[in-house]
């Protein structure tokens, strides 16, 4: 599924030219190996390709070796969402093509795909219908989700438990826009 074509036609709330959603790139390398540099061990000229999507506080320079945490401990949160979980629910953003703003759902509330579809249908006042392995969704809309690898998948292919752990966010696309790969 190639998403690049759709971004131009998406209706989202935000200033023209700004991208509301950016992939979460963690700037993990604040411990830049500046062993070759002289004092102080402050490297304020941080590479900003990672930071362009956010506006980090300009005063916080990256300090080598500080805080004193050893490298094997640095990426403990990798693989997990960087948003803190509210309570113990699994909250994911849901967008729908044509809808002006996004919603958030707690996936933990639902026990199955059927329940999730019902919830989404109510939320967006649309009809998504039932899933079949061969034909996908026989309706105007196709629910898709971004998994933890960053790929966009059709909702329903994997067991519910697996979906719960890998779903990062949902997007209800117009069926006609879906390109079967």
């Amino acid at each position, binding site marked *: 599924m190639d998403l690049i074509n759709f971004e131009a036609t998406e209706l989202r709330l935000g200033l023209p030219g700004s991208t509301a959603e950016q992939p979460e790139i*963690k700037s993990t390398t604040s411990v830049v190996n500046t062993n070759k540099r*002289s004092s102080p*061990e402050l490297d304020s000229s941080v590479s900003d390709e990672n930071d362009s999507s956010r506006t980090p*506080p300009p005063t916080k320079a*990256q300090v080598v*070796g500080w*805080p*004193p945490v050893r490298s094997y401990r640095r990426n*403990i949160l990798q693989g997990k969402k960087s948003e803190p979980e509210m309570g113990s629910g699994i909250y994911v953003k849901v967008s729908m093509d044509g809808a002006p703003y996004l919603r958030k759902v707690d996936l933990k509330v639902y026990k199955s795909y059927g329940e999730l579809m019902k919830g989404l249908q109510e939320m967006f006042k649309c009809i998504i219908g039932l899933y079949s392995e061969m034909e996908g969704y026989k309706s105007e809309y196709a629910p898709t989700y971004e998994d933890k690898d960053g790929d966009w998948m059709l909702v329903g292919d994997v067991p519910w438990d*697996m979906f719960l752990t890998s779903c990062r966010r949902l997007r209800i696309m117009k069926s006609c826009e879906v390109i079967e790969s």
Partner: protein
Amino acid sequence: MPTMDPNRKKSKPVDLVDSVDSRVELTESTRSCPFPDEVLERVLSLIDSHKDRSSVSLVCKDWYNAERWSRRHVFIGNCYSVSPEIVAARFPRIRSVTLKGKPRFSDFNLVPEDWGADVHPWLSVFSSAYPFLEELRLKRMAVSDESLEFLATSFHGFKALSLLSCDGFSTDGLKAIASHCKNLTELDIQENGIDDLGGHWLSCFPESQTSLEVLNFASLNSEVSFDALEKLVSRCKSLRVLKLNRNISLDQLQKLLLHCPQLMELGTGTFMQELISGPVTEFKNMFSNCRKLVTVSGLWDATPLYLPVIYPVCASLTFLNLSYATLQSSELANLLFHCRSLRRLWLLDTVGDKGLEAVGSCCPLLEELRVFPADPFDQEIFLGVTESGFVSVSRGCPKLRHVLYFCRQMTNAAVATIARNCPDFTHFRLCIMNPGQPDYLTKEPMDEAFGAIVKTCTKLQRLAVSGLLTDRTFEYIGQHAKNMETLSVAFAGNSDLGMECVLKGCPKLRKLEIRDCPFGNAALLSGLTKYESMRSLWMSACNVTMNACRMLAKEKPRLNVEVMRDEEGSDDSQAHKVYVYRSVAGPRRDAPPFVLTL
């Protein structure tokens, strides 16, 4: 973590000697010592503590000789303080060696690669001097695959290898160890800069390998053959420590535990399963046969769904390492409810202050707490833990002795309360993550906090300070920290006076590591007479010049004064990284070009 500093036996040699004295005849009148060497050696062989042994060796020449012949384990805290030849000459019968190399700040990338601490020269000498060497424990040493192969093939009775924070080797080196060390009892690989080329090394253990007692490969990333692992675990009946890596699933863990009910320390693999092969209840009995388990670690990805699986063993746990599990406060509380016997607890700050309240209420026997930051470099992340969590723990755990605490805010009042609640601190390391941050309520420096600690906690041996600190902190330390042996300082102090107070006032100081502080030449030189009684001094990004270092080196020939130059060589008069240590081996001959020994 294996203890690197064997200091168990506290027996005084005098007592032992007196008890033997009455039954031994006097030998030749020319002997200064009233009984034969063999008896003295036999008596001294019972002393384990290397500090006690050092004292013993100073009594007289006979005792020196008896001690050197009876010593089986040697501890070398700084590999450059002595040469392998000197060690081999003095101690002819060593079976076990502990060796530490790089300065501690190398853990935080402050020491360039290729700095040194190569283990190979040691192995070369040992291969002829100690062909019966059984144990080698290395920390912050440079170890190559060739060295590991050499080790595996040169020492035929070799039993135990422990590598902590070492670098330079790959899993190929581990293959050599697994293949050749027929009597291996311990393979402990922790937190090393290792080239992980795959898990095949584990399959190199031959069928005849049945003696393993300790196997720790938790920090290796690649998958090992589960089949090989399962067979290995089932034939090693004495296995008591097993620490798996994240690739081992819950299903696989369950199978392994069936083979080793005698296990005392377990590091699990991932504690979550996306596709469960059976109902979760099937896992509930996984631990019920492990009646000897006292330590659990690993627990990667643990969720509320699977965590209850370990509840059956919690009551007898003394050490729980949750520093890889991103638990929230309620998950932790539910878990700790079952863990009343805990002495040591390691956590991530995802548990928050509420989680720490649970620690305070559930773990009255707690002696050690370490709280690590889950996301230390992202300043936009949630708060983690604050002063309030620390205070809660101190109220419920008065036996606390050893603390490492990372936080983003702290107050002087809170630390003073903590010190009052836990006067027995021996290790106190507080890291307020934003450098130079004051008391967030009063906006004052954190001087009074550390002042309270050193005044109240008279047994303090190790201290790490942080936050906005003036010279006052160091005045307090110099005045009160009379048992302090290790001090770590960063982004603190106003003037030379700070460092001078510490050097003048702390009689037991052995290791001083300082970075990014305004201490200069006067401070450095004020310790002229002190450094020979210390293991080492590290100063980086301070105000020290090359001339002062040269002066120190000239006045004290038994110190190695090393300055690390950076490549740009912009300002030759400034000494950016200074490492000073006592040595009987003279200046080192393997220094790389960027290390200048003055």
